[in-house]
């Protein structure tokens, strides 16, 4: 009994002890997303003010007072979580990132703004979304990911210029590329290439360093960039350091690339029979025919069918390697934070001889001198190297190899490559690849620094200074046996070209924001100055007799040399005021006053205002009842004026240039001046609706836009009898309008997560005035793109091909005179030439589906372009009924051969000219495509396992780029625009352009 009593007393005592005493609970807090430990998380016993902050390893230890049953974990950027203690002593927790909160702040011109408060139209893509994609430049990664943003890589050659159109093309003669701003500095984005193939200076940026991309689409968001905002503005913000334990992230990526598609050409047997027919039809006798083939067979006997060459095999690399390694560190204290990264990319092109390498180091540093005074510096040093190929229209371009006959051996019996000097119809590009190089090396520095000072609460002054230095060296050598070398009397030709672009920006501005009860204002104003100076030096020499001596130092004959300095400057003043009332009524106005050296004395400065307003309807009292369903609803509208200044630096001046005759210096009139030259003006209306359903499980937006551009900076054709072909004038107008739709949906939110995001754009473009001219047509006989009033820019003008006369195999052209009759004369038909198609898509978009389950994640991204046509201008050679001796595409097998044949391919006649015309619908086809752009499958190793090896995250992933393409286009790839021709007007033209690459990579990401 006593024993029992004692036990009872002890038990009560013990219970009392338990109840009366606080408990100690410990654990580790991690981020659910990357399993990284989170330092600085507030852990509070609910209902008390007892709490601790997690240490540098995310660990905490807390004495919980008696009676407390829950712990509350809070951390900026993460969803606050309450956890039942129960009888646990150890509580580990993974915090969910608050994605809504993160995306709430958006970078805008000269500042940031809460997403819900934005009245303009900004497409935001987080850096994370495009991280580690196996592409060279960020534009390639952004393709299809934002509504209203059309991106096209015209060619599969690496590091080449990309087309980016934000809400269409607004200009005929000035650039239609957006303004690119990296960390506040407008950067050099124009090609500095010395060859006909433009390169992309933006490929110098390692986009894994990017935190976010913001595309300013409408006037309200872009007009603060005034004279250069008509094509939209792309703001690129790089990653910043975060206080806490230094985190290391290592990412290794490795894979292979292959061409997306191949084109089918005749084999040796087919070639022989096709050309025997074509030559016979041209009146050649058997001896002449044998002679013809004999030459192309070089030292082999075509009659014995000794050779079967598939030339595409010779230029497409099999499994071209892709390797990238990124190491980044991120950390710091409350006062000083840093982000440091190094990256190395080595990408082999799908074409032999094409390679791109990039090494990049970045340091982003932020330091608080005092609570009010902050200073920061972003520095990025990059070396990029591009082993380049000739432009598409040169015989030395690898893709032109397909013109060579399949009966020709690659090498002669001596082992030497066959060449045109052996009787080939054309130069063999392999000779160029083996005996020449064309290397472009760039050293790039993106730097910007800032100093900001909070003068009083809410009033901050900020000064920034930054520069973008581009040093590009193009080094080319063409050996003694190359085409260029033969032209130099069988000696080597060397070229050296150096371009330095120093581009710097300084700015100072004030920001004031204040909230007074229901009124919130945010005002920004300041000035900016930018100056860019380009220094070019080029020289060429020949006479090199030893192929190993490849630099100009060995060239006894310097054949040309030149240097030039050019530049421009912008001086700008800008201001913005945002006003919000009662969290639901939003008004904003911006203005920029811009001056540029590019314009005439009389029109040097221009003013670019915008206004916008929004109404968050869902904040209204009357919406309360339906708020669970319609969780967010906002309507907004904007109107404003933006400009385009992207013309040459001195287009307004009446200039004479230096020339030479017989090595005596002279001058010649070079361009007509125009003292009144000024900005091209675009007014834009934007009407949008944003919504969220079911507590924002589904969110989206619908926008209508209309851009009206007038006073086009048009290099307008004038009567050539004046001595000039064109003059730059502010004349003409163009219009873009359309719809943009974006939808995000969290379809499943449990352990198996599935979300979908969809964006769609329906753009229209129309040239409305060309200064009284009905049309600008510089297509000549080969190309069809024109600017014609009432039509989209670049529309294809030509003659409708009506097939083949079954009687005689003649090609028939539509007369287009209303009679429905046809003619065999292209010239006659061309008198009534009509618009045959449009190179601009009328519908494009992308859809991403992300799935995650436990450690696995899967992302499937499709992108499409529709409603556009492609003109295969090379059809004139490769699908031309044997006009030339080029190998033909297999469609020529169904040519007309005898009376009664019903076909669309005319009778083959060597140099016959039957159906041989550039501007006919015969070579035009539907350019729509749907592409499985990116497929990523990843696996995150569980954190409890990783802890044992002191790692925070380990992720394995496989990424496929351009895995599947669905299209009716029979060429290499429907995403095409040949490089040597590409302009605002010349679009959608295929001329031996390299196909896109299909890349599969495996990656490993380690964090600790």
């Amino acid at each position, binding site marked *: 009994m006593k024993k029992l009593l004692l036990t009872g007393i002890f038990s009560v005592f013990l219970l009392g002890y338990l109840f009366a005493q606080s408990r100690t609970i410990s654990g580790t807090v991690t981020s659910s997303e990357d399993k990284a430990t989170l330092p600085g998380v507030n852990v509070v016993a609910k209902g008390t003010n007892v709490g601790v902050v997690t240490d540098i390893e995310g660990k905490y230890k807390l004495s919980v007072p008696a009676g407390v049953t829950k712990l509350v974990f809070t951390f900026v950027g993460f969803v606050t979580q309450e956890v039942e203690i129960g009888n646990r002593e150890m509580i580990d927790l993974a915090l969910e990132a608050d994605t809504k909160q993160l995306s709430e702040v958006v970078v805008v011109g000269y500042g940031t703004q809460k997403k819900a408060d934005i009245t303009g139209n900004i497409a935001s893509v987080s850096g994370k979304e495009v991280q580690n994609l196996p592409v060279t430049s960020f534009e390639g990664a952004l393709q299809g990911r934002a509504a209203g943003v059309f991106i096209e890589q015209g060619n599969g050659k690496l590091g080449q210029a990309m087309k980016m159109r934000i809400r269409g093309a607004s200009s005929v003669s000035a650039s239609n590329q957006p303004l690119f701003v990296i960390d506040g500095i407008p950067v050099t984005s124009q090609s500095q290439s010395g060859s006909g193939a433009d390169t992309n200076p933006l490929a110098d940026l390692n986009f894994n360093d990017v935190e976010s991309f913001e595309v300013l689409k409408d006037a309200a968001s872009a007009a603060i960039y005034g004279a250069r905002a008509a094509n939209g503005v792309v703001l690129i913000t790089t990653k910043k350091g975060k206080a806490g334990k230094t985190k290391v992230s290592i990412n290794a990526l490795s894979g292979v690339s292959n061409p997306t598609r191949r084109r089918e050409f005749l084999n040796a047997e087919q070639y022989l029979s096709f050309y025997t027919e074509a030559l016979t039809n041209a009146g050649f006798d058997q001896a002449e025919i044998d002679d013809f083939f004999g030459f192309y067979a070089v030292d082999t006997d075509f009659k014995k069918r000794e050779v079967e060459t598939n030339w595409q095999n010779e230029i497409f690399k099999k499994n071209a390697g892709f390797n990238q390694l990124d190491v980044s560190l991120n950390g710091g204290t409350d006062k000083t934070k840093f982000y440091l990264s190094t990256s190395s990319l080595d990408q082999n092109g799908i074409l032999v001889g094409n390679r791109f390498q990039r090494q990049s180091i970045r340091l982003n540093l932020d330091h608080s001198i005092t609570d009010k005074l902050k200073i920061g510096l972003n520095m990025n040093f990059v070396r990029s190297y591009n082993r380049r190929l000739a432009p598409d229209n040169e015989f030395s371009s690898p893709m032109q190899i397909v013109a060579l006959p399949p009966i020709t051996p690659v090498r002669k019996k001596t082992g030497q490559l066959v060449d045109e*000097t052996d009787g080939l119809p054309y130069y063999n590009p392999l000779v160029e690849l083996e005996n020449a190089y064309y290397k472009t090396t760039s050293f790039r520095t993106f730097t910007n620094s800032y100093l900001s000072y909070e*003068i009083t609460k809410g009033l901050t002054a900020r000064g920034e200074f930054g520069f973008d230095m581009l040093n590009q060296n193009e080094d080319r050598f063409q050996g003694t046996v190359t*085409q260029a070398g033969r032209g130099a009397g069988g000696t080597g030709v060397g070229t050296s070209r150096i371009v330095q672009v120093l581009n710097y920006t*300084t700015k100072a501005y004030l920001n004031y924001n204040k909230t007074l009860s229901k009124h919130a204002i945010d005002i920004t104003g300041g000035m900016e100055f930018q100056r860019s100076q380009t220094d070019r030096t080029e020289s060429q020499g020949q006479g090199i007799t030893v192929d190993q001596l490849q630099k100009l130092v060995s060239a006894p004959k310097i054949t040309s040399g030149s240097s*030039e300095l050019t530049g421009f*400057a912008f001086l700008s003043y800008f201001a913005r005021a945002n006003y919000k009332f009662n969290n639901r009524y939003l008004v904003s106005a911006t203005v920029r006053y811009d001056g540029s050296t590019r314009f005439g004395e009389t029109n040097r400065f221009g003013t670019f205002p915008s206004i916008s307003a929004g109404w968050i309807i869902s904040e209204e009292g009357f919406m309360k009842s339906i708020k669970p369903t319609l969780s967010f609803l906002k309507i907004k509208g904007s109107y404003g004026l933006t400009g385009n200044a992207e013309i040459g630096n001195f287009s307004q001046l*009446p200039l004479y240039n230096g020339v030479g005759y*017989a090595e005596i210096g002279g001058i010649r009139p070079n361009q007509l001046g125009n*003292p009144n030259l000024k900005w091209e003006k675009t007014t834009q209306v934007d009407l949008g609706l944003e919504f969220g359903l079911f507590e924002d499980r589904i969110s989206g937006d619908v926008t209508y836009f209309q851009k009206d551009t007038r006073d086009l900076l048009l290099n307008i054709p004038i009567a050539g009898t*004046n001595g000039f072909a064109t003059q730059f004038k502010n004349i003409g107008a163009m219009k873009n309008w359309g719809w943009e739709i974006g939808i995000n949906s969290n379809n499943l939110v449990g352990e198996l997560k599935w979300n979908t995001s969809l964006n769609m754009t329906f753009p229209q473009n129309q040239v409305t005035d060309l200064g009284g001219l009905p049309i600008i047509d510089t297509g000549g006989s080969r190309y069809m793109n024109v600017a014609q009033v009432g039509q989209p820019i670049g529309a294809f003008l030509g003659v409708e091909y009506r097939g083949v006369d079954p009687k005689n195999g003649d090609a028939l052209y539509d007369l287009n005179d209303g009679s429905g009759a046809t003619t065999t004369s292209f010239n006659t038909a061309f008198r009534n030439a009509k618009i045959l198609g449009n190179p601009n898509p009328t519908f494009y978009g992308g859809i991403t589906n992300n799935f995650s389950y436990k450690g696995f994640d899967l992302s499937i991204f499709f992108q499409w372009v529709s409603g556009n046509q492609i003109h295969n201008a090379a059809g004139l050679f490769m699908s031309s009924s044997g006009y030339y001796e080029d190998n033909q595409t297999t469609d020529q097998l169904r040519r007309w051969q005898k009376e009664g044949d019903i076909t669309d391919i005319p009778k083959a006649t060597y140099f016959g000219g039957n159906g041989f015309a550039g501007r006919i619908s015969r070579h035009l086809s539907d350019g729509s495509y749907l592409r499985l752009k990116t497929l990523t499958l990843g696996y995150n190793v569980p954190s409890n396992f990783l802890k044992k090896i002191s790692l925070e995250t380990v992720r394995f992933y496989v990424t496929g780029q351009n895995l599947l393409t669905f299209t009716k286009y029979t060429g290499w790839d429907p995403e095409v625009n040949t490089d040597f021709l590409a302009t605002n007007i010349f679009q959608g033209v295929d001329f031996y352009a390299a196909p896109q690459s299909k890349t599969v990579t495996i990656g490993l990401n380690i964090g600790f």
Partner: protein
Amino acid sequence: MIKNIKYIVFMLVFCSLLACESQFEDIKPTAGIEEKIALSSDKNIKSLLVGAYDAFTGSRLLGGYYQLHAELLAGDPVARDIRWRGTFADPGEVFTKTMLVTNGDASAAWLNSYNAINVVNTILANLSTVNEQERATVEGEALFIRGSIYFELVRLFGKQYNVNTSQNDLGVPLVTTPASLANFVEAKPNRASVAAIYTQILADLTKAEELLPTSNGFYANKFVAAAMLSRVYLQRSEFAAARDAANRVIRPGSYTLLVDYAFCFNNIKNTVEDIFAAQITVQDGVNNMSTFFGGRNIGGRGDVQVLAPHLNLYETGDARRAFFYTDPGTGRIHTGKWKDVVAANINIIRLAEMYLTRAECNFRLNTSVGAPPVEDINRIRTRAGLRALATADLTLDRILRERQLELAFEGQRIHDIKRTGGRVGSRNFSDPKLIFPIPDREIKSNANLTQNEGY
């Protein structure tokens, strides 16, 4: 507050970086000068004259395309004397006589010719700036260039001169005043008549001959103008004037026939036979005759292939026949006249042509100004290694054949066919397809122009 002032000063120093270079004034083109400076001095106008020669001998003019077009128009795809083997569609259309109004070569010929005319018009309008002692020469050279270009234009875009119809036949717009670059006003002129263009050509060249000195380096001198004048008169079948002009070139003995025909071509300096040649150096100009006529083995494109029907025209033993060569790679035969793409001059007028012109005119007129026609013809024949002809054997056909072979692939053929009423295959010399279309881009930008017949 004191603490704050420190930071504000810091801030101001930082921002002073900004303001210091906010200027525009020093941003000026380095590759060009403004018009008012360009036309301000004697030296500059003379530099402009060098620029005029640069334009006149540019790729699209005497740098090769003028002559290429004349030869391709004269080539007959059916007779197969030559064949265009190139992939450039535009010259291909010229050869097959299927030119489109959008033909790029037609518009390039037009634009570049008028561009060059504008240069010389600018010189002529600013002669008062030139030092008095050199003014006549500068004027003479400018007039020579202008007259020569109009001569090419009217032959390319207009009908053959005919004394009865040329008043009404459309030539090309006649522009004799320069465009002001700084205060430009676009002019949209009509096509002047063929006769009016020839009147201008004769006036320009006649005055040029009068003004120019007898010696002027490789630039135009008195004899160059006279030689061009003889071509113009010959084109108009004004044989006496053509003969006399040719005689004015030959008689003073400034030029001599080279001993060997082969020595006449592919020279980096003018020879004693060259009256006028486009100067091509490694640095300046391109020899596009070699680009198109030259074989690939010498760095050309090998585009113009010479075929048997042409080769068969030469008599046995003709050195000019032996002058053709076969590209061992392609097996194509090419003329040996154009074998240096980079540095050889392009012969424009050789003394041989003056002998041929004088002979033809003397023969037609039954005169012997300077020399009897047989003597002139035999000079050409014996130099080519052929036997001399007896006076009795000389016929007009023989003279014309001699001219065809001597000047083959030098850009004269179609013009000779047209003036002698010949044929190109099945086409009569007056076939509208032997004339270029007025470029489509020009018609579209100048509504006052009328398109040629057949286009």
